């Protein structure tokens, strides 16, 4: 069995010959508070290959969005990145200065923010808002920008006549599409989607995700997909990581996590959602609430809420270990469990 902590090769990256598009290594992010630093992201490593979708799952406050924002270096005070590496296409994001970052953001990595449909300016037409990005970053003339904006709207399935619409004249789903069009305006290599569909109903949600999948196939970008909806993620991602209290507790190909979850937290998360097919079963959920990140629990951070906890968990923090090919778990019992299952 393979153990090379603290940096596991992320699943998916080992297979490809080329370097992964995004590589996050031993990332630490802290929020400074009067009580001391809160460890929002604690030694997180993963990578995303070209054209792949990587999912980050976990409950509110586990650090998913913090990771997304630190890739763009747009976390606002009192956040501080206190260690690690973030590489996008070989470029070291954490070494960049403000001027470099300005060029890097949106051109290399674009983001669809949480509640993105509210991030449109209500008093400017959507066309002008797409034009803005193109004129600012690509130095297009207003006429050229308008042409490209129409193209972008068409790509996300909105007729170009709606360029003259104001955000309040569109439905939530349409606004979401506009935001995605803005994100794709500069052909980014990586698209970060931070809970992009949480505010939409399931039908529209499905529709938009299908469209993104098609766009990804056509344009070839990679996606970092963040959600707390695990079933959605399993369907949409190639690989995924489950986070708890700022740490990755399990990382594997999405289907593998769905069919063979090992970490008790992952199991709890999966049993919190009803499945549409198959036998009816009781939803168990996870008792308790997320831990205090200023004074996190000793050992495995999940142990106060865990039903399968042993003394070992309360004392030593388990390391991410590859239990089967490409399946990493931070769980002392993980090894024994998989062997028992085999």
């Amino acid at each position, binding site marked *: 069995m393979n153990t090379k*902590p*603290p940096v596991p090769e992320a699943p998916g990256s080992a297979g490809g010959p080329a370097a992964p598009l995004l590589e996050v290594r031993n990332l*630490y992010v*802290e929020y*400074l*508070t*009067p*009580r*001391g*630093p809160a460890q929002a992201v*604690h*030694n997180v490593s993963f990578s995303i290959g070209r054209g792949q979708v990587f999912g980050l799952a976990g409950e509110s406050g586990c650090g998913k969005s913090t990771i997304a*924002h*630190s890739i763009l*270096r*747009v*976390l*606002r*005070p*009192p*956040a*501080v*990145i*206190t*260690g690690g590496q973030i590489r996008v296409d070989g470029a070291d994001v*954490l*070494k*960049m*200065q*403000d001027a470099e*970052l300005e060029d890097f953001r949106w051109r290399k990595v674009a983001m669809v923010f949480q509640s993105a449909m509210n991030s449109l300016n209500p008093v400017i037409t959507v066309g002008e808002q797409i034009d803005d990005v193109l004129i600012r970053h690509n130095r297009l003339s207003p006429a050229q920008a308008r042409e490209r904006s129409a193209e972008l709207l068409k790509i996300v399935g909105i007729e170009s006549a709606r360029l003259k619409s104001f955000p309040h004249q569109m439905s939530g789903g349409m606004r979401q599409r506009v935001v995605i069009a803005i994100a794709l305006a500069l052909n980014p290599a990586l698209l970060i989607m931070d809970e992009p569909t949480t505010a939409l109903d399931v039908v529209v949600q499905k529709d938009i995700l299908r469209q993104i999948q098609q766009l990804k196939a056509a344009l070839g970008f990679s996606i970092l997909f963040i959600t707390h909806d695990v079933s959605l993620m399993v369907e949409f991602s190639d690989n995924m990581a489950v986070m708890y209290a700022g*740490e990755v507790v399990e990382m594997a190909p999405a289907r593998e996590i769905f069919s063979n979850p090992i970490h008790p937290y992952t199991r709890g998360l999966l049993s919190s959602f009803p499945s549409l097919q198959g036998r009816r079963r009781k939803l168990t959920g996870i008792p308790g609430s997320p831990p205090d990140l200023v004074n996190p629990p000793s*050992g495995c951070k999940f142990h106060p809420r865990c039903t399968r906890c042993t003394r070992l968990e309360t004392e*030593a*923090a388990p*390391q*991410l270990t590859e239990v089967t090919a490409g399946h990493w778990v*931070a769980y002392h019992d993980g090894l024994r469990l998989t062997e028992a299952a085999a």
Partner: protein
Amino acid sequence: MSNSDSRPRPALKLPGANALGTLLGSPKAQLGFVIVLVFILAAVFAAALAPGDPKKYVGKPNQPPSAQFLLGTNPQGKDVFRQLVWGSRLSLLIGFGSAVLMTLIAVVVGMVAGFYRGVVDDVLNFVMNLFLVIPGLPLLVLLSAYLKPGTVTIIFALAITGWAFNGRIIRAQTMSLREKDFVAAAVVSGEPGLSIIFVHILPNMVNIIVGGFIGAVTYGIMASTGLAFLGLANTADVTWGTNLFWAQNGGALMIGAWWAFLPSGLAVALVAFGLALINYGMDEITNPRLIAERNIQSVLRQARLPRMRATPVVPHEH
């Protein structure tokens, strides 16, 4: 994963976050408080600090500062130091008194106009515009000339001419806040309008009201000083303004007796400066991001890293 080593970490900690601590923690506000407090203490303890009647003739006119007369004597042979210290009493009283009155009128008129809109707003807004377009100083001069001169008159006149500016700001903020969901929720739950105004809307604009109040104090002190300098106050009172009036009256500027007018003029400027600094500190209370920003910059300084807009990277042991 674990904190494997136990080496001490650099202090990545923010100072306390209560409102008073924040205000006192801001260097700008600290300086402002010290300045304003010095003048308030001088006003309260005037009798101990500069004993004697400031209106009394104490020596030859226009004597420069000396051991006997700390700031010299003015053209009327009065002790300038006494005048400065005793003058702070009425000047500060007029400043704060008129600011309280101005803020009260501005809050009530502004919030009622902004909340009820319609005809109410039309009328109140017209009144506010009226007071905004009437040139303040001439109206002040008129009021002061026709009313019985005195402290209450001045306070009243200042409040009448000065409230509309803040009233407009508060009206605008009320109009914006009343569209928020929490106000809509209060409306549909059947709360009466006045309760919505004072329980839900007012606390959300305390920063604007306090900021406006501090600005109003400055306006009150400056304007009352200006009026007194023009001779439109009771010249028998001792204020910084009347001090300037008497200095001008006796030709202090012409004969180069700077000590006669500089202290009171400087006092007005310093109090205004101190109040402005306190206002900066207020910004930080109502916008905690500003504190976070300031503290992050100090963390960067400690780590000898340059300032930047992007999320800073401060590597340290884990």
